[in-house]
């Protein structure tokens, strides 16, 4: 996986040299540079992996990045990293496209005109010299949550040099409420790290710990470890919006935000011993929690006010959670974002800000709408914005500085549990970007290289540095959890009537920072399967109250500010509430992300970041939305099977009905490996990480909204969503690799045939495009290049693609082939070592990425292999078994573990 320190250092020297060449030139090179790499890697073409980490909102997921001949092509999780354990989410997977995105900024600009780095440095020198007399008063730096010790040290250094300067922080998806809630409960701000593997009973109150936020990948893994029937935990979810966490819950109640606060108070009362309440599920949940003291956990979502968080801390204390199922860690940030951005806006408007450095972020787009951040920014004489794209904030600042991607820079990062890791560059900046550290260094007259800054900040050198670099984590750097006592805090929720607008991060573009990423734009949102758009989500009852159907426009207004949005009906959404996903309607998000969807930020004031009373009116007209799945009912066909815990424990078979065993033809003999896959529906949370991982691994193109709305998405593994009786089931569907494949028999040219190990392969060169195979595929896993999608906009340049996978031309069919190239890679290695391919040598891209390890893959000819063992489970079943296609991909049924006391 990693290389020896010597060769590693050689590479870094060369990468550094290339970086210096690229950024030292007078103007950025017209084309992306491909850095020089070790000749050995070129000669044998074997991919290398380097450890690094990707940070979002101050918390990082550790990664191993695949480098093919010096070019980063694929991202995997770092098994040694506590936030990853080898898995990743969709954002991490899609960040490889961000690296290569040709729409990324390449030019340093001063008021729109290309300028040089020296000119910027000179401007800073002039500005700082002018501010020197007043100790730097008027100098401001705006960052997001800072997860990098290096940057913290740099900022501290600047503050020391300019004592009167001020630092500000703004994250659109900030954690002000939980941090303030901790302060109310404990007297200090803390971050919570949850330990789902230790929790028998979890109550998530408007929280989505399995689907978003710091540590979610790890949470999902730990949660899945408690879904095995033998050690099955129970999850209650009370929420407004049908989140991923809610979809996995054994009990779920959809409530409007105000009702959720009442519910929380009800639970608190029940835990304190009050025995009657009219609120659904409260008594059952409370009894369940109390019965599992020390193994129970209550989680409050960010949308709850600080006092509610404080109450939840008190509940957890009562349930014996601290130290068992939750631990408290030093916080990511010491300031309240809303307060910080407010001060900055007011100071800018009053002319008190002379110079502003914005490191990342996009406040001109996502700052609270009541502060008119962009308007205030115009009054700052010297402003500079360091960002990957020329976005809304870049346009509002005097200077725009192209930022190096995290795969191009030296830095460090902090995991959700506080573990430190090093961010190392895999490639010299492709488009001449500079890192935030270099940008900050301009203000502190620092001449040390970013790498030296990182070494200094982490206090690492020599072997310790090299080991940390290789492993991707700094050994035993996780902070000791804080032992804190929770106080009683009073909480009186405000009663609300009428409509509520709720703001949520979008599952694909997050707060808007991923809007330029075509893979994410085209990633079906778990709840709605919409792509390339956001929509105002409403419940069926609310929709009929408003008289709208999917796509009909509504107008949501809050305090005179209005947003027009297309409605989309979600079963499982709370009545009376409209969820408005953030991150859309961007003006400057490149060719991919601009003018997509509607912008909900104008409704979002600093005081009401997550929900607010609103008025809703039906507008005329409709907007065509693209969804990749139009039908979520199973129609009694049970493609995604469910069983009760009792049945699962007693070994009841999930498959029912007649099993066809006879075939007209004798079985085809497979003498060596028999590759097979099993997907555990009880573990799958529907997060889509597999879909993006597959897209990155197999060079799968995007098709755009118009094509997606015609049903032409190209994903080789899709995640079907079924809703049945209030339950949600996620079913990833890759190719079933049927042994008696119906697709193959109907191809007139033999373009899809079986290989000797039982994989149904697609021969692109031979395909003439009759599409008969797709018609005859009962699982509809085949994807067709109706146009030349691989040459379309938003794709990686060929240098960034997986060199072991052909890109497909128009007119040919494609589909999942169990990552055949990975099998080949393992086979080559095994052949060199004169042995069979061993268990674990082949890990498919979807399997590797899966946060819950729902996917098992291997050689089922070996009875001891994991996949063979999993397939023997009584929960195992075959999709559409009655067709007797004999798929190699099979499923394990979902298990429900409802509280017998809770009623239906």
């Amino acid at each position, binding site marked *: 996986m990693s290389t020896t320190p010597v060769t590693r250092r050689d590479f870094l020297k060369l990468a550094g040299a290339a970086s210096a060449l690229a950024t030292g030139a007078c103007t950025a090179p017209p084309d992306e540079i491909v850095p020089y790499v070790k000749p050995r890697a070129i000669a044998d073409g074997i991919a290398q992996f380097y450890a690094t980490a990707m940070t979002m909102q101050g918390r990082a997921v550790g990664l191993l990045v695949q480098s093919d001949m010096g070019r980063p092509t694929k991202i995997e999780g770092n098994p040694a990293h506590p936030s990853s354990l080898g898995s990743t989410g969709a954002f991490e997977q899609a960040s490889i496209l961000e690296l290569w995105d040709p729409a990324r900024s390449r030019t340093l600009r001063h008021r729109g005109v290309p300028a040089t780095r020296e000119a910027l440095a000179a401007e800073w020198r002039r500005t700082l010299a002018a501010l020197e007399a007043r100790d730097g008063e008027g100098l401001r730096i705006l960052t997001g949550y800072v997860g990098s010790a290096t940057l913290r040290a740099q900022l501290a250094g600047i503050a020391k040099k300019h004592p009167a300067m001020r630092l500000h922080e703004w994250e659109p998806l900030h954690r002000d409420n939980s941090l303030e809630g901790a302060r109310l409960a404990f007297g200090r701000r803390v971050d919570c790290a949850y330990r789902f593997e230790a929790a028998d009973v979890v109550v998530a109150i408007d929280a989505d710990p399995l689907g978003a936020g710091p540590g979610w990948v790890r949470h999902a893994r730990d949660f899945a470890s408690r879904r095995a029937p033998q050690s099955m935990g129970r999850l209650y979810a009370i929420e407004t919006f049908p989140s991923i966490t809610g979809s996995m819950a054994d009990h779920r109640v959809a409530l409007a935000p105000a009702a959720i606060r009442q519910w929380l108070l009800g639970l608190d009362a029940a835990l304190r011993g009050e025995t009657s309440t009219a609120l659904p599920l409260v008594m059952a949940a409370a009894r369940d929690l109390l019965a599992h003291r020390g193994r129970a956990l209550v989680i409050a979502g960010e949308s709850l006010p600080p006092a509610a968080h404080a109450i939840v801390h008190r509940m957890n204390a009562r349930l014996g959670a601290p130290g068992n199922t939750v631990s408290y860690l030093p916080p990511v940030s010491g300031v309240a974002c809303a307060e910080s951005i407010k001060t900055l806006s007011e100071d800018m408007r009053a002319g008190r800000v002379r110079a502003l450095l914005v490191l990342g972020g996009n406040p001109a787009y996502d700052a609270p709408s009541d502060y008119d951040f962009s308007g205030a920014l115009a009054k700052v004489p010297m402003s500079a914005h360091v960002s990957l794209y020329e976005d809304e904030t870049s346009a509002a600042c005097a200077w725009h500085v192209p930022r190096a991607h995290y795969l191009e820079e030296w830095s460090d990062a902090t995991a959700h549990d506080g573990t430190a890791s090093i961010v190392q560059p895999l490639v010299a900046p492709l488009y001449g970007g500079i890192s935030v550290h270099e940008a900050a260094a301009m203000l502190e007259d620092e001449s040390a290289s970013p790498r030296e800054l990182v070494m200094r900040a982490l206090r690492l050198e020599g072997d310790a540095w090299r080991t940390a670099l290789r492993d991707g984590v700094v050994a035993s750097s996780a902070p000791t959890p804080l032992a804190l006592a929770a106080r009683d805090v009073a909480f009186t929720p405000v009663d609300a009537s009428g409509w509520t607008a709720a703001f949520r991060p979008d599952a694909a573009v997050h707060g808007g920072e991923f809007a330029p990423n075509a893979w994410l734009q085209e990633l079906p949102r778990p709840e709605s399967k919409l792509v390339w758009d956001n929509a105002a989500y409403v419940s069926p009852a609310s929709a009929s109250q408003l008289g709208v159907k999917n796509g009909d426009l509504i107008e949501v207004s809050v305090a005179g500010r209005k947003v027009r949005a297309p409605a989309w009906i979600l079963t499982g959404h709370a009545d009376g509430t409209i969820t408005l996903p953030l991150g859309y309607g961007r003006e400057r998000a490149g060719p991919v992300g601009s003018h997509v969807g509607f912008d909900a930020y104008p409704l979002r004031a600093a005081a009401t970041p997550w929900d607010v009373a609103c008025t809703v009116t039906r507008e005329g007209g409709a907007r065509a939305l693209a969804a990749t799945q139009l039908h979520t009912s199973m129609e009694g066909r049970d493609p995604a099977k469910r069983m009760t815990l009792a049945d699962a424990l007693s070994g009841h078979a999930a498959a029912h009905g007649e099993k066809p065993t006879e075939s007209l*033809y*004798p*079985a*085809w003999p497979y003498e060596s490996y028999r590759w097979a896959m099993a997907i555990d529906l009880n573990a799958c949370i529907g997060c889509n990480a597999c879909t993006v991982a597959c897209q990155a691994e197999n060079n799968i193109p995007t098709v755009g909204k118009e094509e997606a709305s015609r049903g032409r998405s190209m994903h080789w593994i899709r995640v079907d969503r079924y809703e049945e009786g209030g339950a949600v089931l996620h079913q990833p569907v890759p190719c079933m690799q*049927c*042994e*008696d*494949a*119906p*697709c*193959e*028999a109907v*191809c007139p040219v*033999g373009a899809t*045939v*079986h*290989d*000797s190990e039982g994989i149904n392969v697609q021969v692109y060169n031979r395909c003439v495009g009759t599409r008969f195979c797709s018609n005859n595929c009962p699982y509809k896993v085949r994807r067709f290049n109706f146009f030349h999608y691989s040459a379309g906009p938003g794709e990686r340049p060929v240098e960034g693609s997986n060199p072991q996978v052909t890109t497909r031309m128009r007119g040919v069919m494609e589909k999942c082939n169990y990552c055949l190239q990975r099998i080949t890679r393992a086979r080559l290695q095994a052949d060199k070592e004169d042995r069979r391919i061993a268990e674990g040598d082949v890990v498919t891209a979807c399997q590797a990425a899966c946060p819950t390890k729902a996917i098992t893959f291997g050689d089922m000819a070996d009875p001891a292999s994991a996949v063979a063992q999993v397939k023997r489970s009584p929960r195992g079943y075959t999709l559409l078994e009655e067709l007797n296609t*004999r798929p190699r991909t099979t499923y394990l049924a979902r298990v429900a573990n409802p509280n017998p006391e809770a009623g239906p």
Partner: protein
Amino acid sequence: MSALYGVMAELADEKALLAAAREARDAGWSGVEAYSPFPVEGLAETLAPRASRLPFFVLLFGIFGGAAGYFLQWYTAVISYPINVGGRPLHSWPEFIPVTFETTVLFAALAAVIGMIAGNGLPRLRHPLFDAPHFDLATRNRFFLCLRGDAPRFDEERARGFLESLRPIRVIEVAA
């Protein structure tokens, strides 16, 4: 006499032609040809009693076409390019039947047409008869009986006399 293709009587209808052909046969004439704008029943049997070999030829080619079609499928699927297609046996004979049927019909049909054209000595774009006056009516409404000049024991005077005895519209001399 070698400059003469034959002597020909132009007749008004198919009955006259059939009667003339019978008389010529009964009179022992050889090298008798009869031309009509549509097939006249009994005429060919009168002039050439031997049954046509065309059906046999067509049958032969049909069998050959079917065998060749099946062989092609078997050879390519089992010997030349054996590959696992959807777990089906290499020799999936039931699925080879449609193509076998089609090649049978194709070869038989081609044999029928080619056999007919070749048996009739066609194509022959130039022919002495085309220069004969009035022969263009052979494809409209006139019927012709021709005694070939190259027949053994042909005598132009006798032939003309025989044709005149049929009371034709006219007797035409056809140059070779």
